[in-house]
């Protein structure tokens, strides 16, 4: 009789550094933190607006402080990364049928990016007015 000795490889905690594609993936997932921060930031802004012109001025002042700007620049980068990855992956996850035929995934990207642009423009218009 023999005893089987299988070698069970173990994944290290830093597995996501082992390959570039894994690292990119983890960065993509980490964008969630910044999505969270973006929402909080907007809420702070809303609170300031609700608190009257003075509070609003204070907020504007605070948001111009260097560390707030650095944080927000980083956040912006992650948000863009989130948008691009999310849009690029959507066709893989969704099948759109037009008149019984499958729309080729590449063709879906166009409308998605267009939608992004339109939404962004509307928002900018609303805010800047």
């Amino acid at each position: 009789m023999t005893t089987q000795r299988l070698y069970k490889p173990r994944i290290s905690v830093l597995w996501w550094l082992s390959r570039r594609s894994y690292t990119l993936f983890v960065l993509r997932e980490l964008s969630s933190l910044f999505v969270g921060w973006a929402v909080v930031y907007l809420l702070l802004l809303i609170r300031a607006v609700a608190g009257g012109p003075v509070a609003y001025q204070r907020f504007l002042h605070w948001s111009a402080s260097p560390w707030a700007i650095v944080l927000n620049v980083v956040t912006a980068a992650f948000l863009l990364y989130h948008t691009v990855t999310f849009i690029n992956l959507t066709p893989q996850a969704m099948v759109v049928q037009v008149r019984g035929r499958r729309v080729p995934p590449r063709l879906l990207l166009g409308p998605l990016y267009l939608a992004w642009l339109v939404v962004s423009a509307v928002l900018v218009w609303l805010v800047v007015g």
Partner: protein
Amino acid sequence: MPEEITLQVARYRPEQEDRPTFDEYKVPLRKDWAVLDGLNYIKDELDGTLSYRWSCRMGICGSCGARVNGEPKLTCGTFLTDYAPGPVRIEPLANFPIIRDLVVDLTDFLVKLGAVQPWLIRDEDKPVEEGEYLQTPAELDEYKQFSMCINCMLCYSACPVYGLDDKFLGPAAIALAQRYNLDSRDEGADRRLTVLSQPEGVWGCTFVGECSRACPKGVDPAGAIQRYKLTAATAAVKKLLMPWGQR
């Protein structure tokens, strides 16, 4: 072009050692030699103790998968010249227990494959005498891609989630379940739903997407899984809204 190339091949001899090591071999570097030809050269001429799997050497039997310089590949379809001047590192597929050298244990996958019921399920079988179930080429196209899986396990090797949690059903098993779900002749989607919608089913996948990049047959298991998430989620919502509704 140099005459030779060095292969660093992972060895694990369970009777002699506790963990894998590397052995180096020099093999001829020829224009049409695949990595597998290099391994066969070692086995035939240099060292008969090297163990690895292969059979068809035409990329269809799915047995020759290994990591070549870290990437999961079919060794019969990966050419040495692409790695010249070398050295080339050849290791067993990741995330599976290693039996010996480049041979890994696939039992886990076969259990999971059986669990997703990868066969045509009908409420009522039509007798063979009455002829075929009709299926238009468009209906065939719906699932064809997912029927191309050769069970080579490259996707399991690439998927970090499977590496972290071997309870995860994994890309190929889910893609094969989708292959039947999307087949116009099949009526078994409900039965597969229970298995697929478990936490270790489609929900384990965080859409790393590496599985689809590794797949040599263009199956796109990542796509299959995300598409199934939508199906499973819709089914869950439906059940929530109409708990007593039809099956």
